[in-house]
């Protein structure tokens, strides 16, 4: 009896004793969902990428906080005059975490496994980006151990930006072939962290790569924990069980801003949230109607009251910090009177009735239903009666291929800041749905021509000029109602030093040191 009592006391004490702080050198990150697959070439979700991209690296990359392309695993490159051949000189002496060497054939393997159906590793995964990113790649040819050439079918000036994508990461061919279908659970690359373990539903642990080519990594390991419930994630941060969380819900931002225990970082990501308009369907084929819709919506109110500062109003599709963004663009002001006048001019003095499709949730969709509800009431105020239909994300994407949409809410995360990566897929007429992502069915010959020309020009300054002209056309044409760019918010414990957010939504914990 006495022993049982003792045991009970010990247990109770164990339960109420304050939790110990994390071991030194271990960074604990709270994710909003569990990664599903750690091979960045196989997944489209942010959480998988945020973890997977610590293990593997790309030939070219973006520097901290900035977006011009800089050397990564390749130390330099040349582009042929016709823009069809990109030749990379690889860094020497780098090894994968499994000890095999990084070389030109590994580059060939990493890309060709995705695009060549006869490749031995092609059937080992589903590669969602194969066509979108590498559909234009004819072959990847090693010229020597440390030189490799990408041969393209058509010139594409944003190809370097494409090679910064997670899907363009270089993997260890030995590891892929050895692990087969199980490779995504234990990835092997050259990155700052090595994969260590994955307890399903609980944590993914990465250990530092002691031989990292860029220099020593300052933390010993990173532990990623999936915590879906916002309140739980926040509680764990505030009680010191987590060091860093991203995707802080809008409702908690003010509460965290005044909290002494945590720091907060904000940054506008390469993202755009728009209300698409079917440009081919009456009455939206009339530019005045589309402009009227833009005047009718109060974006400032959406950003302020619905997104609570987790978004910044957008003027066009291109994020303002991007090198090709036109600085002189003027946003459509909130002007219901002007909207009514334009509608009357277009022949709708008594307004009109239309349908708005909205997904319940979805990657990058912020608060789709709440945002759309505000838009709906804004439009009603100028006489546009909107029937809102909400749908499940997968069903919604499938339905948008029907071309029957009138108005629809959608967003885009390019993942890299190149105007081509936003404007071309979303607005070039060759990209009309169902084949491409131009779901607004927008077509303007002059705009198409500018974008195509920019794609074929390797001179960056000239490209910028062309993109700026294209953006002016867009503002005039108003193919969408421009709404916002997402502002990503991270909260972190005070012991976290040197953390920076990247506009690509990547989570580069390798820059962190712990106090």
């Amino acid at each position: 009896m006495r022993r049982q009592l003792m045991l009970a006391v010990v247990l109770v004490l164990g339960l109420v004793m304050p939790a110990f702080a994390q071991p030194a050198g271990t960074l604990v990150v709270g994710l909003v969902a569990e990664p599903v697959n750690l091979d960045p070439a196989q997944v489209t979700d942010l959480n998988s990428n945020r973890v997977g991209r610590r293990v593997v690296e790309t030939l070219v990359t973006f520097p901290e906080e900035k977006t011009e392309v800089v050397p990564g695993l390749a130390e330099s490159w040349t582009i042929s005059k016709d823009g069809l051949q990109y030749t990379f000189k690889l860094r020497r002496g780098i090894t994968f975490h499994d000890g095999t060497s990084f070389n030109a054939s590994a580059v060939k393997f990493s890309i060709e496994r995705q695009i060549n159906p006869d490749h031995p590793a092609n059937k080992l995964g589903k590669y969602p980006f194969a066509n979108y990113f590498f559909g234009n790649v004819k072959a990847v040819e090693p010229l020597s151990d440390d030189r490799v050439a990408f041969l393209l079918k058509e010139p594409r000036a944003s190809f370097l930006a494409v090679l910064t994508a997670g899907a363009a990461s270089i993997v260890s061919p030995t590891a892929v072939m050895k692990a087969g279908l199980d490779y995504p659970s234990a990835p092997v690359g050259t990155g700052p962290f090595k994969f260590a373990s994955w307890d399903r539903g609980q944590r993914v642990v990465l250990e530092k790569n002691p031989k990292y080519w860029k220099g020593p990594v300052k933390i010993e390991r990173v532990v990623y924990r999936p915590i879906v419930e916002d309140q739980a994630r926040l509680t764990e941060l505030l009680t010191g069980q987590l060091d860093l969380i991203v995707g802080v819900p809008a409702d908690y931002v003010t509460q965290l801003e005044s909290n002494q225990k945590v720091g907060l970082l904000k940054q506008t990501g390469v993202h755009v949230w728009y209300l698409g308009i079917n440009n081919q369907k009456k009455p939206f084929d009339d530019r005045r109607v589309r402009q009227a819709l833009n005047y009718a919506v109060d974006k400032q109110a959406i950003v302020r009251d619905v997104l609570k500062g987790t978004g910044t109003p957008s003027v066009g599709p291109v994020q303002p910090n991007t090198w090709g963004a036109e600085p002189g663009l003027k946003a459509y002001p909130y002007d219901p009177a002007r909207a009514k006048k334009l509608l009357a001019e277009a022949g709708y003095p008594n307004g009109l009735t239309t349908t708005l499709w909205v997904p319940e949730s979805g990657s990058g969709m912020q608060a789709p239903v709440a945002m759309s509800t505000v838009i709906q009431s804004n439009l009603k105020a100028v006489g546009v009666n909107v029937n809102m239909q909400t749908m499940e994300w997968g069903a919604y994407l499938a339905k948008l291929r029907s071309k029957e949409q009138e108005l629809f809410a959608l967003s885009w995360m390019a993942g890299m800041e190149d105007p081509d990566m936003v404007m071309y897929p979303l607005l070039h007429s060759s990209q009309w749905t169902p084949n491409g992502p131009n779901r607004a069915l927008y077509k303007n010959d002059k705009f198409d021509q500018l974008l195509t020309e920019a794609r074929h020009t390797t001179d960056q300054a000239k490209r910028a000029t062309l993109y700026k002209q294209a953006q002016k056309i867009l503002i005039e044409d108003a193919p969408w109602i421009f709404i916002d760019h997402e502002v990503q918010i991270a909260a972190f414990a005070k012991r976290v030093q040197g953390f920076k957010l990247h506009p690509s939504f990547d989570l580069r914990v390798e820059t962190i040191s712990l106090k």
Partner: protein
Amino acid sequence: VSRFLVRRLLLLVPVLMGVSVIVFLVLHLAPGDPAEIMLGSQATQADRMRLRADLGLDDPLYVQYARWMGHVVQGDLGRSLWMRRPVLGEVLTRLKATLLLTATALVISSIGGVALGILSATRPNSLLDRTSAVASLFGASMPVFWLGIVLMVIFSLNLGWLPASGMYAPYGGGDLADLAKHLVLPAVTLAGASITIVARLTRAAMLEVLGQDFIRTARAKGLVERSVVVRHALKNALVPIVTVIGVQAGYLLGGAVLTETVFAWPGVGTLMVQGILARDIPLVQGCVLVVALTFVLVNLTVDLLYAVLDPRIRYE
């Protein structure tokens, strides 16, 4: 008994078949294309068509079902579309966590509920009885996630006594004390609603038994009250109590989905939610099948318990 057992176990087959057909149909008839979700918004129509063909989604439903069933009977639940990992292994790993959580919650609600019920029954209309009646109404109508968050805010955020999520400390830890600490909040949350149901039913059953003649006889022959209540009354009230506890076991298994999500408990529930959101059909099918099997086995155990508790019940 062995013949009864064999018959019941054989009945498992049609039950599980039925469950699998329903789950299969619901998943395929619900809107949402797994290929669209896997590929994201930049996919071309060609990408989508290729992936659909690859996943066999274009075949008639009965062909898809037969193909899946053909693997299932060989013990192969297939691979998850997203994770690319064998479903059976994933589900079994997670099932352990779910069973631990459910069993703990069941123990809490049985012991707590029976104790509360007895106390109420022996002091009808006392303050305790009335408080417990109000608490029951509250408990039964309170959503699990709400209770979970309230407990989390009080015990983790404000008092700092207990961790808010997960099964073990993020790094290090891993021993029994660590596990117990993490188990308290989710288990109490999950037990919250069923403890009140068990208490109300125990009270009713006890009141009925306590009013019977043999209780008066027991008291008349001078037995101490404790012995009357526990030995004589409770034993006779046990069959309905065990029935409701059995029902609660199933309820807790289902309720675990929400509790697990709130507390990031790595069980089948969180896995299933993840699978449903991603329209990961093989994964969801595997989860449901394993949970259904567990549920049926729990029911069978309860049925067998009746015979142990009440010698008048015999299975042929």
